[in-house]
Every structure is written in C-alpha cells, then in structure tokens.
C-alpha cells in the first residue's frame, strides 16, 4: 500500500479524499493556489505544496507542477478527485511514465471514454442504445449548425471532452445555433483545453440515472446500483438520490447489466460511472462514462456501506476486489443536496465572497462533505461548490423528512446559497411523488420566492443579539448603552 498520496484537487472533495487516506494511515499531500492558501484542504493535508498563481490553468490544471509536487514530497500515487485533471488522459499517461500511480483508470481508457463521440461509437457497437446525434466531433461552426439542422431542433450542444455541464447548451432554434456553438466551444476550450464539440438530439424531460461501477485489474467488475440525478440547474446536478424512484426492478436490473457491459467493453479499471438518460417509457440511452469519482458518490456509499475512495486506492495499489455482486445491497435511501455559493433568485449565478459564519447540521443519518469554516473565502476562480449534505434513512419518505430537517439546520452566512430553495424542492409534492425530471428546477423556480414570513423572529433575534453583545458587562449585568456608542441604537423611543 502507498504511504503517501498527493490529492490534486481542492475544496470539499480534497478534504473527503484525505479523510479516507487518514483512516488508511496514508500521509496526504495537498496542493494549492495563491487564493486557496487558507483553504480547508490545505489545513487538513499533512503536507501542502504551493503551486503559485491562481488561475486553474497555472495551478490545479498544471501537470508539470503537480508532478513536481508529488516528486518533491515522495508521493507514490495521485488522487485527482473530480474536475481539473481527473479525466485528463494526458495527465494519467504522464503519471504512468513518471512511475507515479494515477488513482483512476488507465490513460487509454480515459482517452477513449473521455472522447464523448468515440465513447458513443463504442457503446453503439456494443449494443448499448445511444441518443441520436453526431458520432464525430467538430469545432467548425458551419458544420455543427448543418448537423444540428439534420438532427432537428431542439438539440443539445456538448463539449466532446467535457462533463459537469460545462460547455453545454440547449438550442431551440436554428438562429441561436451558431452563437451557442461558439460559446460552448469557447467554454470547452477554457474548461477542458479542447474546442471540439458535438450535437445530439435534445430529449425533453428525461430522467438522468447513472450506475456506479467498480472494476479491479483482474477484470472483476461490480456495480453499486444506480443514482437518480435528475434535479439539475444549468445541466449540473444539485440533488441526487438512490435508489431512483423511477426504476422498476426489471429496469433496474437491465440498466445495471448495461453498465457492467459498458465497463467490460471499455476495459475499465477502478471506480467509474455509466450515465444514462431514461425516457417516460422506461427506455434508456447511454449518455457517457465518467472515469472518475463522482461528486454524488456519497449517496451510494450511504446505502451500500462501501467506501468508494478506499476501493479506488486499493484497486490502484493492485489489490483485488474482495467483494461479490451479492454482497452489495441497497439498504435504505439516501439523498444528497449540493450547496453552492450561488443565488437561486438570480438564475443561480455564482456568488463568491467570504463566509462569515457556518454551522453544519448534525444527528442520525447525516453526513456533510464540506470545505467550509467560519471566515473562509470562496474564490471566483473555481467551481463554487461549498458542501454536500448527504442524508440516509430507512425509507424515501423518512429520508425526505431528514433532508428537510438537516437543510433547515444548515446555516451558511456571508455568501448566498440555495439552501432555502433546496428545502422547498425537497418538501414539494412533486418531489415526494418522485416526479423528478431534468426540467424540474426550471419548472419549480418559476414562481418560487423565498419565504419571508419569519422576518419578525429574525428582527427580534437580531435585537436580542445586538443588545447582548453591546450591553452585557463582564459580570453579566445588562446596562444601558450611550446612544453614541452604537449606531444601531436609537433612543427616539426611549422612555425611562
């Protein structure tokens, strides 16, 4: 087993990976950019290496700097987390060349599956249904527009290298197509270093269901069942759960079998996720394989009891999977809510800043993966994910109630978060009925406003707090404060 692992990431995922490393007795090396020097993943790491600079390209995406840090600190393996270099085949190859273990699949598997159109061709050949659309990528806007017209609007424009919703656009009309392709191509270039995009048919109101797989180097492949990830905004998931309320047992069996077939076809090793879109008739289409740890992996960990990061590390160290498919069962229900720094009232615009206070929820069945602490800064340079609230309960109904309690106990102040919005989504009748499609957020946000009925209690609490902090003497006596001492107090209504 490795004695030192470098975690080539930041934020909550770096912290979460380090937790498992610590449990396994593995020393952790963190890396950080200038703006992240006080970030939690730096504080948590046993050793931390400054990368210099703040842009993703000169820090967490800089292969030379990451490799040099691993060398300098004697790390035998690198865990890439998600995003950044996690699905970068060139980086995985470089690790292989340098004799450092990349904790993920072999570089050629990442390359093949990371090429979304090549993956579509492989799955199509393997008999897995794919969404109608381009099988070859392009950055030629005229060609893309022409293909879009052949496919028929609405279409989805996607980065050929991407994931996580970056560089992705729905195009409803031919007029909007060229501009959307240009923007998607540019976002793809910025996020993934490739301007190549492709166009496929846009399915209205589908569900997004994915299957977690684990494969060891001996060719043993297991699935850890599905995750339902339909609640999205800007094509990025915000609520995930497992089991999916939309799968019947026969569909669950066949979608999990399809995922195993996909993993075998690709020669997959380590943890991966096979994503599908599900239509209303229970038909499913291959979307893509994510060759990394997913943001939403904790819901699977909650219901199966498997620590996916530990398994990733063991597989990367050459250990066989000492589990059989029958050992893996779904016990209870789990829901994850992603807490981003963003404003639900303003199209979920990112909202960087300083977190002045945070208190995370506690209690039975609650897990919080987080990079928050009071006084931490949310920089504008990176994805604004702050934390993931994961709850586990015996049934879906109990899980919903638990999620609502936990969200209402989750206090983040100083940056805007969608916590009140998430609580209202979870509490909604439509969510309770399991009517989750990828249009859910767009439909729900229409007419949603934050509840302002609690203003009286807020005002009273603020007044108490102001009085206590300003007026209490050392020995606990409450005294009157001179008006000039506090701009908050006005003596207009003062009656002795």
């Amino acid at each position, binding site marked *: 087993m490795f004695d030192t692992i470098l975690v080539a990431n930041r934020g909550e995922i770096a912290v979460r990976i380090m937790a498992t490393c610590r449990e396994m007795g593995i020393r952790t090396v963190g890396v950080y950019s200038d703006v992240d020097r006080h970030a939690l993943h730096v504080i948590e790491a046993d050793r931390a290496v400054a990368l210099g600079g703040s842009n993703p390209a000169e820090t967490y995406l800089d292969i030379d700097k990451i490799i040099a840090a691993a060398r300098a600190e004697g790390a035998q393996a690198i865990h890439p987390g998600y995003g950044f270099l996690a699905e970068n085949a060139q980086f995985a190859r470089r690790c292989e060349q340098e004799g450092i273990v990349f904790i993920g699949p072999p570089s050629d598997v990442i390359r093949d599956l990371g090429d979304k159109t090549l993956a579509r061709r492989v799955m199509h050949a393997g008999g897995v249904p794919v969404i109608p659309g381009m099988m070859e990528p392009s950055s030629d806007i005229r060609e893309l527009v022409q293909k879009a017209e052949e496919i028929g609007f609405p279409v989805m424009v996607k980065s050929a290298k991407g994931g996580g919703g970056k560089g992705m656009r729905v195009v409803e009309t031919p007029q909007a197509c060229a501009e959307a392709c240009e923007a998607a191509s540019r976002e793809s270039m910025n996020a993934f270093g490739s301007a190549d995009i492709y166009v496929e048919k846009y399915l209205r109101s589908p569900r997004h269901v994915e299957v977690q797989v684990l494969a060891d180097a001996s060719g043993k492949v297991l699935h850890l069942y599905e995750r339902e990830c339909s609640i999205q905004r800007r094509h990025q998931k915000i609520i995930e759960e497992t089991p999916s309320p939309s799968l019947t047992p026969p569909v669950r069996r066949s979608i999990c079998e399809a995922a195993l077939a996909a993993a075998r076809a690709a020669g997959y090793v380590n943890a991966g996720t096979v994503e599908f879109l599900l239509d209303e008739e229970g038909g499913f289409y291959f979307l893509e394989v994510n060759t990394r740890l997913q943001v939403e992996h904790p819901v699977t960990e909650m219901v199966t009891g498997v620590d996916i990061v530990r398994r990733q590390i063991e597989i990367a160290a050459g250990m066989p999977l000492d589990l059989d498919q029958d050992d893996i069962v779904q016990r209870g229900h789990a829901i994850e809510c992603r807490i981003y720094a963003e404003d639900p009232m303003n199209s979920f615009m990112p909202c960087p800043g300083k977190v002045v206070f945070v208190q995370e929820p506690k209690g039975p069945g609650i897990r919080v993966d987080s990079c928050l602490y009071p006084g931490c800064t949310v920089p504008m340079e990176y994805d*604004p994910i702050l934390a993931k609230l994961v709850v586990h309960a015996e049934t879906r109904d109990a899980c919903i109630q638990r999620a609502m309690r936990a969200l209402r106990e989750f206090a983040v102040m100083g940056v805007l978060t969608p916590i009140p919005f998430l609580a209202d989504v979870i509490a909604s009748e439509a969510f309770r009925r399991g009517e989750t499609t990828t249009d859910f957020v767009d439909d729900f946000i229409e007419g949603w406003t934050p509840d302002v009925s609690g203003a009286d209690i807020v005002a009273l609490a*603020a007044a108490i707090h102001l009085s206590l902090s300003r007026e209490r003497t050392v020995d606990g006596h409450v005294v009157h404060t001179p008006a000039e001492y506090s701009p908050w107090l006005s003596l207009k209504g003062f009656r002795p």
Partner: protein
Amino acid sequence: MHVRFDLKIAGRDVCVRLERLDDGFVAAWVDDRRIEASFAAVTKNVLYLTAGPGSQKVCLERTPEGTYVNVKGATWLVRDAHAADAGRPRRKGGAPLQREVTPPMPSVVVSVLVEEGQEVEQGQGVVVVSAMKMETTLYAPYAGVVKKIRCSAGEKVMPGTVLVEIERTGREQER
C-alpha cells in the same frame, strides 16, 4: 428598560422595541406585534428562541454590513435602518440601477465585443465576463456610441466598475 431598534430586513423597515431582556426572557414589540419569548444564547453566534409553538435555533454574526441572521436555513441581512438609508449609493437624476456596463459579481473579462467609437444598440452584447467557469454577457443598457473601453481580456473586474462607457444617443426612453 426600553430600547428601540430601527432595522431594515429584506427591504422592509421593522421596528423592535425591547421592554424586558433578562433571565433568558424577552418581551418586545415587533412593529405592532407583541412577542414574549424565552431564549438561550448558547454561544456568541447561536441563540435558541422559544416563541409560540416551539424552539427555534437562530445563528447570528455581526459584520460591518450588518448582522447576518440565519433561521431554518435561510439567511437574512439585518441592517440599521438609518445607516442603510445613508449608505445606499444614490445616482444622479434618480436613474435606476443596471444602467451601466458592470459585472454582477467579481469576474474575469473573457472578451470585449465592441471598439471605441462604435455605435451600439440597446441590449447589444458588449463584454463577456466569466466567474467560476460560467460565462455571462453584459449588454448595452441603452443605444449609443462607445466612448471608452476600461477593461481588457484577462483582467479581473469587480461589481461597480464600469467596463465600457457608452455615450447615449437619440432619445431612448428611461425604463
């Protein structure tokens, strides 16, 4: 005791008059509503308030902008009403906000879509900015001529900074 707080909460003026505040008990008027509650301040930042049906955890933190208050997962910024009025930036002629080309959040300029001297239509894209990997186009608030470009690609910019100055032409209606 009787201490009055004139507060501004979610754009609304709220007056709190504390009549009694001791031994974990508070009696107050919040505007016209009389509230009596017991409370326990468990830390500097956490207060449990029992008013009416049940106990409620409230988190609070004072900052120069005001007091942040969190109840049931929702955060409110509570400001002194007088300070809030005095501190608000006033604009000449009472023109509404969003009349300038300025980013909604700290951002990096991706590209400038216009040149100095160029005529622009109302609503025409003039600058593309990016924050947290998401691109946003900033539009011309009115028709005019680009007088001065005050940013360039790759530059970090803050809300309030005017990125492109546009000299108004014609008699575009104020909205």
